[in-house]
């Protein structure tokens, strides 16, 4: 290989971080402006969630536990939206609930918006929002014995002992399914305190690989992982967005995801090629004095 090309490659291992950031923004933003038609292939874990939800009988309530806030909204909201949309579409009744202060409030806004797509879907008849509760352990232990007695009121301060939907779950074991969405380790508390309750969960993609042992052991009866998981569920559930195109919130992000992933892979390859080229150069010529160090030390204290 010619030394000029090697030098060029060697320089590519120290591209300024700002150019990388710009490339990232462009790759992620472009598909949001110009949509790319894409097809998502679902994983078995996603299909399993759909079968689990389909198998819940009419007279059983599904609990959607929303343990996320604005920090992980980008992933958790599509994960929650996909399942709630599916529940509304298939006339399944559900309750919203959470241990993170913002969760149930954000989920309520989301559900109200989704419910507009389906005429006749109203709060209190098709879904109820139990709101936020502190203290995971105490609340779960108490709910295992008595749900309305523990929670007392919904977010609109209605008495839950008179709520027809809550009456469907005198205790948690009577729930048709508990679907947990979170970017936290709270699902472990459910595993620990909710023996005998059918559980399924959705997590941010970071936590995905860690959840698979619970899927294999059957402790979770369906698993969605990250924005891709939401898109997969939209594919399985045969979703259509407002323009009639395939998918929903999850699908919308998949074009950006695809380009972003390609960028990361390209940069890893480039970085390694650069190191390799530099090594080749070092073997042939003695290193010059103004050699940039591989990990630039920013002595001006710049950039976080």
């Amino acid at each position, binding site marked *: 290989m010619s030394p000029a090309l090697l030098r060029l490659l060697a320089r590519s291992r120290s591209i300024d971080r700002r150019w990388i950031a710009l490339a990232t923004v462009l790759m992620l933003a472009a598909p949001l402006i110009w949509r790319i038609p894409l097809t998502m292939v679902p994983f078995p874990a996603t299909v399993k969630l759909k079968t689990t939800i389909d198998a819940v009988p009419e007279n059983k309530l599904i609990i959607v536990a929303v343990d996320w806030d604005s920090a992980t909204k980008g992933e958790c909201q599509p994960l929650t939206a996909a399942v709630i949309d599916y529940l509304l579409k298939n006339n399944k009744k559900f309750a919203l609930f959470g241990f993170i202060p913002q969760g149930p409030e954000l989920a309520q806004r989301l559900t109200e918006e989704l419910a507009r797509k389906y005429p006749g879907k109203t709060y209190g008849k098709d879904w109820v929002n139990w709101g936020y509760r502190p203290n995971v352990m105490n609340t779960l232990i108490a709910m*295992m014995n008595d749900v309305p007695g523990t929670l007392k009121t919904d977010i609109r301060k209605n008495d839950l002992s008179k709520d027809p939907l809550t009456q469907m779950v005198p205790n948690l074991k009577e729930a048709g399914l508990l679907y947990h969405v979170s970017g936290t380790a709270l699902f472990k508390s459910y595993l620990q305190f909710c023996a005998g309750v059918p559980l399924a969960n959705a997590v941010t993609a970071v936590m995905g690989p860690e959840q698979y042992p619970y899927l294999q052991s059957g402790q979770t009866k369906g698993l969605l992982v990250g924005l891709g998981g939401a898109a997969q569920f939209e594919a399985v559930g045969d979703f259509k967005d407002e323009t009639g195109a395939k998918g929903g919130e999850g699908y919308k992000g998949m074009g950006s995801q695809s380009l972003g992933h390609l960028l990361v892979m390209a940069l890893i390859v480039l970085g390694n090629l650069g190191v390799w080229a530099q090594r080749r150069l070092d073997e042939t010529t003695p290193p010059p004095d103004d050699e940039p160090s591989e*990990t630039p*030390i*920013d002595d001006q204290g710049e950039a*976080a």
Partner: protein
Amino acid sequence: MEFANPFALIILTALSALVLAFILTSTGGRELFIRRVPGVDAIDEVVGRAVELGRPILFSVGLGGIDITTLQAITVIGHVAKIAARFRNRVIVPVVDPMAIPVIEEVQRESYASERAEEAFNPEDIRFLSGEQFAYAAGVVGIMHRERVGATFFFGNFAAEALVMAESGQQVGAVQIASTPDSNQIPFFLATCDYVIIGEEYYAVTALMSRDPVLRGSLIGQDYVKVILLLLIVLGFTLTTIMGPGHFLAKWFAGSGG
């Protein structure tokens, strides 16, 4: 499982007994062998690097509150602070849980005192930044840049903020060492840190560092607990292979779990 059944009780008792037995053996004076963990050997070296550079050390205990994981990290703080105190260097500890402040302050004060370097200890170096994950991370990044830390330690429970902090540490040119029992952040520590202590090795750190017989004995006991789990798994899958999935061992575990 809300209540232990007899099988769970037997297993838990046996495992506890095993750990305690090895602790007794070890405190009784028998030298037990423990293999080396590369990252642990590096701790002293990393502190040394910061001293050479004349820059402070940053020690993050992650997001955990006062729990078992944080406690382990605090023990490491004691060790790091002791070496730092010898060279009158500072150890900055940003925390996310105010409850941890008194404990860490106590430990650091003690370490500096043991090296007769009380004057080098500044209680303000133990900083509560915020109870909120990213406000904490932003604060840590700020400290890294402002104080131009020479070495960073990440010991404890970490989540998404790990990469923000570790990448910043790399930018300021700090020598970095990370250890967490949780597997989620290990790939990022592997990518950004000079030394990474993986998973369970986290719990071995104190035993290797202090040569304390209790800790060494306990570590060996832990190994045998895992040997038992391994044997149960081998027995279990052998039985399943021969008899099918409905065998007695599976039933015992099914009755005790979940």
